[in-house]
């Protein structure tokens, strides 16, 4: 089975409100797919359901032959599906390097006993993890901030740090939740390079984003959600002109309701 993410009929209700309404789409290996839609369209809820932070009411999502829905978030990560958050969830007191090293915990296994007895296995894993973390920091351009605590880092760099940490789990599929939020123009441009570099390392990307410039620039395909339902899917050129999308974003011209 190729590394395709197949989302089929995913639905999530909060009481009466249908946050995600029977959404289906595919993400092909090596592709950058964007998920866009006005606020409250259910984008983040969809991400939460796909990565185990929320339980779906219906539907399925298979990736590389394995069902994702319903399993615990850390197990989803170990199946190669990593994510970032709309507002970053970093370990504030730990340095950038330490933050990224936590990402490697998805792949390493030395526990209390091997650490307590300082077994060689623990040492070897630590060294490899540290090198991997440095490599990823270089990839996202944070090498020189290696020893800065996350709390002391500016907003834009924090987003890149979280991406680096997600990459440290050696994912094959990376879900980014509004990575460009709060970035200025130069930082957004830098982010685009980072996304290309990640894709060139063979990682498929799904990104939720409001910055249309970035979306149009980097995405191969776009899914548009509105009030929980998928209203359009296709390459950027088509989506730009799709009347339904425009209506969802700009509302009705003739204000009938």
């Amino acid at each position, binding site marked *: 089975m190729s590394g395709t993410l197949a989302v089929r009929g995913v639905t999530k209700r909060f009481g009466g409100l249908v946050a995600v309404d029977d959404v289906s789409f595919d993400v092909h290996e090596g592709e950058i797919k964007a998920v866009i839609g006005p606020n409250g369209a259910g984008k*983040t809820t969809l991400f*939460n359901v796909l990565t185990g*932070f929320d339980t779906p009411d219906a539907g399925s999502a298979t990736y590389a032959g394995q069902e994702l829905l319903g399993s615990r978030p850390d197990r989803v990560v170990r199946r190669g599906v990593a994510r970032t*958050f*709309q507002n970053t*969830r970093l370990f504030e007191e730990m340095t950038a390097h330490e933050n990224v090293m936590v990402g490697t915990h998805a792949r390493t296994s030395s526990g209390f006993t091997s650490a307590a007895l300082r077994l060689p296995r623990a040492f070897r894993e630590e060294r490899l993890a540290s090198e991997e973390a440095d490599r990823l920091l270089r990839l996202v351009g944070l090498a020189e901030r290696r020893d800065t605590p996350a709390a002391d880092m500016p907003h834009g760099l924090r987003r890149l740090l979280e991406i680096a940490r997600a990459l440290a789990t050696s994912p094959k599929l990376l879900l980014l939740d509004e990575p460009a939020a709060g970035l200025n123009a130069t930082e957004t441009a830098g982010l685009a390079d980072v996304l290309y570099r990640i894709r060139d390392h063979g990682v498929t990307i799904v990104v939720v984003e409001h910055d249309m410039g970035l979306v149009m620039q980097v995405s191969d395909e776009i899914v548009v959600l509105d009030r929980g339902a998928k209203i359009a899917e296709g390459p950027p050129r088509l989506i730009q002109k799709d009347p339904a999308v425009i209506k969802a974003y700009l509302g009705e011209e003739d204000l009938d309701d």
Partner: protein
Amino acid sequence: MGTAELLQFAIAGLKNGSIYALVALGFTIVYASTGVINFAQGEFVMLGGMLSWWSYSMFDVPLVVAGLMGVALTAVVGIVFELVAIRPRKDGNPLALIIITVGGSLLLSSLARHAFGPLEKSLPAFTPGPSFRVLGAAIDRQTLWIFALTAIAVVLLSLLYTRTRVGKAMRACSIDRSAARLVGVDPRSMVTLSFALAAALGALAGLATTPLTQTAFNIGPSFGIKGFAAAILGGLGNPFAAVIGGLTLGLLESMSIAFISSTFKDAISLLVLLLVLFVRPQGMFGRAVREKV
């Protein structure tokens, strides 16, 4: 087990329950404004009884005046404690504040021992006289006072929270301190007010129980545990939940005595509390605070 016995157990449960409810209210108020569990809340209960006894024996005043003086003085102690030990913590980190209240609990009980000596003190009943008979069960007057005071406290508190500007300001602080500051509410004075209120409520519980069970410098912790358990059982955050939590805990204890054994009444009620928390991790009426992602 006739109806008279059953009613008697219920009365015993509600009596203890009302005391736990008053103390739990104190926990909830401080929690609402600071997110902190005040380990010195038990000491406020002790001080309520102790300072009332002191006022009653030092000045030739009727009991009700001495009681009011005791509650007022304890509220002052609550304010001074907050200003000296809580407010200086600029970051308001709940964990550090909790440990500060632990220090406060040790300090207040020890100061009470120095000031009032180690022996227990007593107060006459508010309205002396034989207890009433209701369907074969007995209910003494002091217990009626405890029910009344608890009811009054709950009503006044909910009125304060809903009807008054200060009350709304305190609720605003508990929901979001920075937002409250934006609209001109000074969270620091709200915290001081909440400690004063919690101290007064605790003192009220102390005043009401001293005629029954006397007061001594070291009775704080036993009130503290029960009040904390009641506040958690009901669910932290709203006064109504604290009262229901307290009454439920009291009834749980008396029913354990009635139907199982008095030796294990505390263990049984704690086990039930643990079961409730397992089913509803935020207590019976607490809001399910799920960290939104």
